[in-house]
């Protein structure tokens, strides 16, 4: 079990284009260690921006971000988090094993330790035996699993995920959802998960933060009290559907108009 991080966002705001576009406004959020929290909202509500602010990849225009007891900047330099994008972003010129080892190389791990960890990670995502393959030889789902393995390779306290399964088909997506929960249980890190899919958010999370568009703000937080471990059966549970409905209502209510759950994110 790794040390899990808490994330604290206080009055975080972000504007673009000289203040003309307010991507985020007055975001207040306390994320507890070991939580699995999803950010869901229509295109342009700033969820990806918020994720990047937590990761110190974008600076907030206002407000305060504390990650794992430090500033976001410090947390990044200390490599306290791993990030997974919708695109697997694997290097074509490296094998699967070397892709997973990339952050470990940067952190200065010696070869033996790297190899061992890579082996463990491959086992975690059930891709043992694929060490020597190249990314283009793998399916989309497998590439994404490698990406997750890479993000977890240095046991970060926090995992940031930006619609990681958005480009995959429904069946692969559901399967990876279940795998991700297993991994989360095993590693015990905190997860901040951005998604477009209500069902996915409800299935995976302990809490769902519903956001509205322009200006982006958190309109409602829906606690998901479904029992763990969650399985396929959970998806057929009446309480699951009830929670999905509640999140959907929050989404519709928050923007005051029909939400457009289209795929492209404004940022």
């Amino acid at each position, binding site marked *: 079990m790794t040390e899990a991080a808490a994330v604290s966002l206080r009055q975080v705001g972000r504007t673009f284009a000289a203040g003309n576009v307010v991507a985020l406004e007055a975001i207040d959020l306390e994320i507890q260690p070991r939580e699995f929290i999803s950010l869901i909202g229509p295109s342009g509500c700033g969820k990806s921006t918020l994720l990047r602010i937590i990761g110190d990849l974008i600076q907030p225009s206002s407000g305060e971000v504390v990650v794992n007891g430090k500033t976001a900047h410090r947390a990044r330099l*200390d490599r306290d988090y791993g*990030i997974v994008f919708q695109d697997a972003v694997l290097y074509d*010129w490296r094998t699967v094993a070397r892709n997973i080892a990339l952050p470990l190389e*940067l*952190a200065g791990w010696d070869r033996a330790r790297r190899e061992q960890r890579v082996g463990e990670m491959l086992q975690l995502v059930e891709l043992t035996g694929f060490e020597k393959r190249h990314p283009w030889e793998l399916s989309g789902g497998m590439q994404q699993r490698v990406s997750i393995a890479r993000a977890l390779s240095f046991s970060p306290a926090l995992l940031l995920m930006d619609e990681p399964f958005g480009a995959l088909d429904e069946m692969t997506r559901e399967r990876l959802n279940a795998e991700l929960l297993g991994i989360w249980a095993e590693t015990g890190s905190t997860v901040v998960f951005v998604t477009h899919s209500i069902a996915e958010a409800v299935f995976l999370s302990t809490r769902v933060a519903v956001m509205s568009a322009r200006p982006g703000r958190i309109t409602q937080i829906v606690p998901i009290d479904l029992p763990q471990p969650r399985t396929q059966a959970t998806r057929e549970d009446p309480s699951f559907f009830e929670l999905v409905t509640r999140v959907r209502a929050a989404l519709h209510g928050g923007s005051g108009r029909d939400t457009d759950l289209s795929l492209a994110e404004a940022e």
Partner: protein
Amino acid sequence: MASMAVGCPSRFAFAWRPVLLRAVLLIAVAAALWVLWETFKWVGETTGFRLGVFEVNDRTLPHLHDIIGQLFEPSRRNGPLLIEVLWDAALFTAKEAAVGFAIGASVGFTLGVVLHHSRFLQRGLMPYIVASQTVPILAIAPMVVIWTGSRGLPSWFSVAIIAAFLTFFPVTINTLRGLDSADPRALELMRSYAANRWSILWRLKVPASLPYLFTAFKIAATASVVGAIIGELPSSIQDGLGGAILNFNQYYLSSPPSLWATNLIAALLGITFFLIVAGVEHLVVRRAPEHVA
């Protein structure tokens, strides 16, 4: 009316032995070119075809078999076979070209990396780098020869410098383009790892730029051979292909096929350099197979 349904294999798409098909095509085209040449020659000679001063005869357009045959004739009375002379000349020129390529590629790559990191230098130097390629380097060659002589360097080195001049430009341009081509998401990923500039350069940008680099290297390989041949002309160097060309040009009327044979060897040298680089590329660059529409 769409008789070509998508997915319907065309008549020529034999699935078996694509390699064999390629080999057949290569030979077929070569044969077709041979036939074209000889036909043109025959038609030109019998009809007395003229284009201004140009007329078709054994002086202007020797038989292809004469050209190849000339290789196995003595280059001068009781002298070594032409092909031996040309082989030595080719090796000499190859040395100049290879050294020039090495210098030019290194300079080009370094320059590309520097310019990539400094917007100011890029804006300041790029116009002159581009303009430098409009300078007929041939004209500067004599001065380069004298300069290397005064420094005690062998004269073939001046030719290598000229070859390097023609080589560095495509490498610089493509290094710049390749370094810029890194996926922005991959850059974000590196920042999430708090990687420093050096790591980002060598672990992400340079590997990402390899396809571009090798495109430039293939152009540069050819350019280095051209540069070496051109560079030899004003330097009065006898040992290389440039010298051979000048020599056989002077005595063209006594043996037209000799000059053509020299050009054939020069062509083969250029192609060989190209193939070597292409071969290295095949080994080094591991990428997803390209899809061509």
